[in-house]
Structures are given as C-alpha cells and as structure tokens.
C-alpha cells in the first residue's frame, strides 16, 4: 500500500508527460488542469494508505 505514496511524485515530477497546452478543459490548458487534478488524486491515494494501515496503539 505504501507504494501509492510514490505515485504523485512520478505523476508530477516527470514534466515531459504533461507539458502541453492541449487538450484543454473548461478553458484550462492541459498543463494546468492536469496538475490541479493531482490535488484530489493525491488526497485519495494518501487516504487509501491511511485506511489500509494498522492503527496506532492507544497512546
């Protein structure tokens, strides 16, 4: 599960993958909406890891 935490790094740091103007969405060039889309995706991935881990012992 923890491997999911690395996915945003790959998706956002490999710039040639998203350095385009098209296809645009709601007027946003691809470069912008692609990176903005990673915000909820990253939250979701972290949440999945959070759900999948064994909880802390009571403090």
């Amino acid at each position, binding site marked *: 599960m*923890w491997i999911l935490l690395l996915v945003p*790094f790959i998706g*956002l740091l*490999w*710039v040639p993958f998203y350095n385009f103007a098209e296809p645009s969405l709601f007027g946003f060039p691809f470069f*912008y909406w692609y990176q903005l889309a990673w915000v909820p995706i990253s*939250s979701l*991935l972290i949440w999945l890891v959070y759900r999948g881990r064994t909880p802390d012992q009571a403090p």
Partner: protein
Amino acid sequence: MALADQIEWVSLSVFIFFFALVTVMGFFAARWKAGPVNEHLDEWGLGGRQFGTWITWFLVGGDFYTAYTVIAVPALVYAVGAYGFFALPYTVIVYPFVFAVMPVLWKQAHANGHVTAADAVYGTYNSRGLELAVAMTGMVATMPYIALQLIGMGVVIKAMGVGGELPLVAAFIILALYTYSSGLRAPALIAFVKDIMIYIVVLVAVVVVPAKLGGYGAVFAAANDAFTAKGGATGLILQPAQMLPYATLALGSALAAFMYPHTLTGIFASKSADTIRKNAILLPAYTLLLGLIALLGYMAYAAHIKVSSPNDVVPMLFKALFPSWFAGFAFAAIAIGALVPAAVMSIGAANLFTRNVWKSYVNPGISHAGEAAVAKIASLVVKVGALAFILFLPTQYALDLQLLGGLWILQTFPALVFGLFTRWFRAEGLLLGWAAGIGWGSWTAWSNGLKPLATIDLGGASYVFYVGLGALILNIAVAAVATVIVELILPKRTGATARS
C-alpha cells in the same frame, strides 16, 4: 501607475475592523483551551500539545500558505508564466512525505518531550554540534521568512493609499505583544479567521473575475498573447530547458517545507500522530486554493492591469475588479495572513533559541517556567530583528536571504529525517554533510547572482537544476562517506558512548 494616490477610506475601514477583531482574539487566546501559559514551554510554545485535526488544519494551513505566497506566487506567474506554477506540484508532493515521515517524528518528540527539530536530533545522536547546526540553520532561515511576511503586509497597506512605514510598525508591535502574552494559541485562534477570509476571497475571485473577463479561456488567451509579445523564457507551458528546473524546484521545496521551525511547530503541537495523518489528507485543500491564486497572475493580463512591480499584481487586480469594501476585506485577509505565519515563525525560532542555545549552553538547569520566559523574550527579539531588516535594508536582501534560507534549511533534512528510520549514519558524518551542502549550495547560488539554479555538464549536455537539491545530494553523499570513515576509526559500540 501610482498605487498610493489617495487613501481608500471604505477599504481601510473594513481592513481596520478585521485587524482590530483579530487583535482582540490574539490577546483573548491565552485563555482559550486554557493552560498555564507561563509555566511550561509546552504551553506557550506548543499550545499545550493538544491541537486536534481541525485546529492543526487551520494552523498549518495558515502558516504554510503565507500572505507572501498570495502576493508572490501570482507575481511570479504574471512575470514568467508556467514556470511560476511549480508551487503547485511542490505543495502536492509534500503531503505523501508528511504522511510517511511526520507521524514518526511526532511519536519520538512526544515520548521524549522534544519541542524543536534540534531537540529531536540531539535525542537521536547525542551530539551538541549537530544540535547547534540544526538550531542555527532553523533560526537563520526563519528570519528573512518573517521579513517577507512584512513585505506582503506592506504591499496591501500601500494599495489602500496609506503611505509610510508607521502602519507596518504598529501592526507588528501589536502582533509581538499578543504573541508574547498568548504564545502559539494566538496564531492558532487567528488562523481560523484568516483562513476563512482567504477562502472567501479566493472563491469569489476565481468565480467573479473570470466571469467579468470572459471566462478562463479568455484569461489564458490574454496571458498567452502577452507572453508571445514579451518573448524570452516565458509562456503558458514550460520551455524544454525549464522542465528540469521546474521539477527539481518542486521536489527540493517539498522536502524543505517541513524542515522549517514554523511548520514543525504545527507538527509538534498536534495531539496525536493520527492528527498529522488526517491533515496530510485534508491539507491539500489549501493547495487547490493556491493553484487558483496563482492564476490571478493571468487574470491581471485579461484585466489589462499594468504594474511597476509584479508584487502589486494582486492588490491592483482586486482594486480594479472588486467594490472597495470587498477589496478592503481581501486586503485584511492578506494582512492577517501575514500575522499568523509571522507569529508561528517567531515562536518556532524562539523555541529553538531557548531549547538548543540557552538551555544547552547558558543555563542547563533551567526550569520549565524559565524556558517559557526565555522563549517569550526571544520571540520579541526575533520580530524586532525582522522589522529592522525591512526598515533599514533593501527589500531585495530579504528576498535573496529567503532563497538561501530554503537551501540552508533543506540541509538539515538528513540529520532530522534519516535518524527516524535508521541509526546507520554517524553524527560526525551528518555534520560534515550539512557543512558541505551549505557551503557548496551558498557558493553556487552566490556565484550565479543569487539565482536558485545550478548547472552541470555531463557528457556534452548541460543540466540546470535547483541548487538546494544538488546541495542535498552532496550533503547525503558526504555524510555517507564520512560515516564509513568514522566507523572504521571509531567503531560505534566502543567509541561513541565513551565520547559523548
């Protein structure tokens, strides 16, 4: 175009109302979630280590996404285009890192009563030298960061037509006084107001402004025309040579972000490790906001705003497109957005001074109440220092030092983070790596005219990358080699315990 032609009374009245409101809250905060503020540094400096998920969300959101961000990110996007957008990937990838690392740090700090990063490093390595290196780096990197918050506040005060430095001085004295009396509780409470105001301003701006300007398509088209006319290293997407700088700036900034005293203070003040994990999931909401704020830089082109300094882009845009009462509300949000991080930064620096300089070198037998007293005074000194910086030195110095500060604070990463997962590294190696990273990084940035980029030539091709990340790689390499050598000369089990 002159900004300070005349005083905007409606804006100013709204501004003063909200400023007065948070001032009262700041002083009242000492009694919020009441604890003995003067008797223990955990109370003054960490708010009692009791902040749950929502308070931490507002506090870290409030001190990580600063007022200066609201001014400077759109300013950079306005000036250069896509390249200025690196703040977005930076503030996305920081959270998987926070999720994986910061709960481990929190558990260690909680178990041992650590208040600062340098406490944690001393607790792990038992090395006064490494502790001092981490503490000094934190304090030096924080000072220009506080100064930048003042610049952000100064920009909006100027936009309302109020000239001179007196308003800035007055605002800062008020801030210093309630931070002194209430400690971390003050910015934590004010962060609620600040963040809600910023959310309102940005949500209104990203809906209303494009509607007035003909939609996002028109906004991007106007910016594209402007960059085409301007030429050079600008544009709506990155030029090939900008891709590696973009990615390395994002990664280096993300690794540095939670090494700063102010962000770590938010971590240490949390109630539990789970509080931090939940925040790693919830804090990206601010990143979405930041991405939209960045686009204000493009909206300025669509609105035909002309500015002498890119930092005036956001205030000028708000003045041009909003009624004056809402512009005043927006300016108040930005100014209060400067107070929260400035307060937390001065508290973080004061905690470092108290725990890792005063306690370690001046008065090792200091009581808990004594620590709180020293930290309160130290927070005042730090703020006066930042104010003097702005009043007496050129603004550019603060910007340059802030840039170097990011590169310096990143060099504390190996000392603070590696020890949470492995005890393989030796303190001597980490100290040497820190020195190598700071030395090479500062020298390289300096010789490039204080640009954050370094160039290396490999096999005929040259690569341009963020100098801080290069310095970190050098830092880790030196630390590893030195650890191997020290281990050969002084094996751990026999040598290390006898020497400490």
